[in-house]
């Protein structure tokens, strides 16, 4: 091997598989625990299994009892949860109490709208945050620091509902509102990370040797920052889905965020719990994938 060349990168498959399995177990644990939490909420929420017909004075006691039996098929929580899981595996997520439509059908209709808005929003927020953070590296000084702190501080101080209203006034697309909510958090993290990366001794040494800025960025800065950036990618997915609820509710965008708000307003617990589980599943899977990629990136660098 000649001086200055690195040994070829080989993927340690055993370690990677172990990490993958650990993540899969964690994902299952989150789904099961989240499902149990959801089932508990539905089962013990005030009004569970109550039928307005029970108040009808014309019905006999036996008829009222029959109605109660009909609406309390699972008196114990574990029985209810087991039935819920069995049905969920078959793709049956139950019936929405407020719309009287299958939950899976509602999700199928609305999920693409939110997925598109969230992905475009994340792409916009990441592009802007990365661009400005890079700009900060070339225009170092108090002017950039103060102006970026004020801009991100202002955006962080605005509730996402107010940002949504501004976008309604200006008739701007929903994904830009999601980008506006996620951008300040991303920018602050990326900016600090790049400052830290450019202050690394090996980066300073590379600059002193006259290596070009593009090469330094690609070979040294990105290699240092990539695990943290991948982790941030996973977190930003969760942030973007969280922002989707108020934004879709106030901009009247027919996605799952609006559906969750509608379900909460109507106390439609089966719907809101299924939506929470779905988003949890997506964000945890996204986080796991990001961690996994970050691990590979660390190994490669």
């Amino acid at each position, binding site marked *: 091997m000649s001086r200055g060349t690195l040994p070829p990168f080989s993927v340690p498959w055993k370690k990677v598989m172990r990490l993958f399995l650990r993540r899969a177990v964690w994902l299952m*644990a*989150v789904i099961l*625990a*989240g499902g149990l*939490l*959801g089932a508990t*909420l539905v089962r*013990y*929420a*005030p*009004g569970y299994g109550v039928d307005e017909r029970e108040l009808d004075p014309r019905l006999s006691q036996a008829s009222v009892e029959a109605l109660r039996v009909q609406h309390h098929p699972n008196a114990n929580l574990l029985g209810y949860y087991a039935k819920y899981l069995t049905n969920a595996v078959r793709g049956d997520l139950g019936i929405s109490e407020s719309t009287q439509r299958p939950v899976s059908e509602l999700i199928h209709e609305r999920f693409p709208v939110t997925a598109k808005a969230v992905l475009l929003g994340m792409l916009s927020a990441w592009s802007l945050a990365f661009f400005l953070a890079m700009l900060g590296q070339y225009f170092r000084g108090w002017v950039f620091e103060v102006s970026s702190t004020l801009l991100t*501080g*202002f955006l*962080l*101080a*605005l*509730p*996402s*509902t*107010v940002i949504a*209203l501004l976008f309604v*006034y200006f008739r701007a697309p929903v994904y830009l509102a999601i980008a506006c909510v996620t951008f300040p958090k991303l920018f602050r993290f990326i900016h600090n990370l790049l400052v830290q990366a450019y202050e690394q001794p090996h980066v300073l040494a590379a600059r002193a040797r006259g290596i070009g800025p593009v090469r330094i960025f690609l070979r040294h800065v990105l290699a240092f920052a990539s695990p943290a950036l991948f982790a941030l990618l996973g977190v930003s997915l*969760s942030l973007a*889905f*969280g922002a989707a*609820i*108020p934004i879709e*509710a*106030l901009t009247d965008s027919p996605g799952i965020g609006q559906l*969750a*708000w509608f*379900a*909460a*307003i109507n*106390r*439609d*617990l089966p719907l*809101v*719990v299924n*939506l*929470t589980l779905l*988003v*949890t599943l997506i*964000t*945890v899977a996204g*986080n796991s994938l990001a961690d996994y990629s970050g691990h590979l990136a660390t190994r490669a660098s």
Partner: protein
Amino acid sequence: MSSSKSLRLVAGLLLSAIFLLALGANFVAPYSYAKQFRNAPSAAPSAVHLFGTDALGRDEFSRLLFGTRVSLLLAPAAALLSTFIAGILGGLAAFLGGWWERAILASADLLMALPLLFVLLALRATLPLDVAPLISAMATFLILSLLGWPSSLRVVWAAARNIRESDFLLLARSSGSSPLRVIVRQILPSLSPVLAAQFWVTIPVFILAEATLSMLGLGVMEPLPSWGNLLRGLENPSAFQANPWTIAPLILLIIVVFCFQFILPSRGDLD
């Protein structure tokens, strides 16, 4: 005095002034927050109604003062409870170690994996919408504090673990100090800067979460005002054009959250 310290002083003074004004709402506000002037709905600002009235004829200035009191009293209370839970669980995880540590950290990770706003909606949906306004305010902030502790727990746990392995704790134990004395005299004073930082960080998060929930109609219920339900006035652009003071709660919210951002001690101060 350095610029960051003077900025922190200004932010602290501004926050104190707003906090005092909100605490004295009963004396400063000209009217009750629920009093309706039926002959003056959506009135423009005047000497009688400084910030005008809302669509139901309620004095906007009085509602802003009482709303500030609700948000600025309950958010710190919720942050205190959340930090307390994080402190207890983080401390237990660090000092008990083993399976206790793993179980507590795993449960915190599990809660952090759930998207906060979706879980907030799910929990809020278990409560009836027509609860008494004060109960709705309490329930909103209680739910926030019960869901907000996991992010602080990791920080507290890391700090507590460092203390567990410190020489001074070993010395205190070997000199025969009782466990209670070790906790009160050694551990708590060492953890207090971290707990204080977590407390201050959590307050604006809870203020913003309440504002979001209340604007969606799932937080503090009318007629009790909070910054969140006062911001609902912005949903009607024509009302905002007729009375620009409708934006006052938003300006106050931004000032307060900004002040909390500046008031936080920097890493250098903690060292």
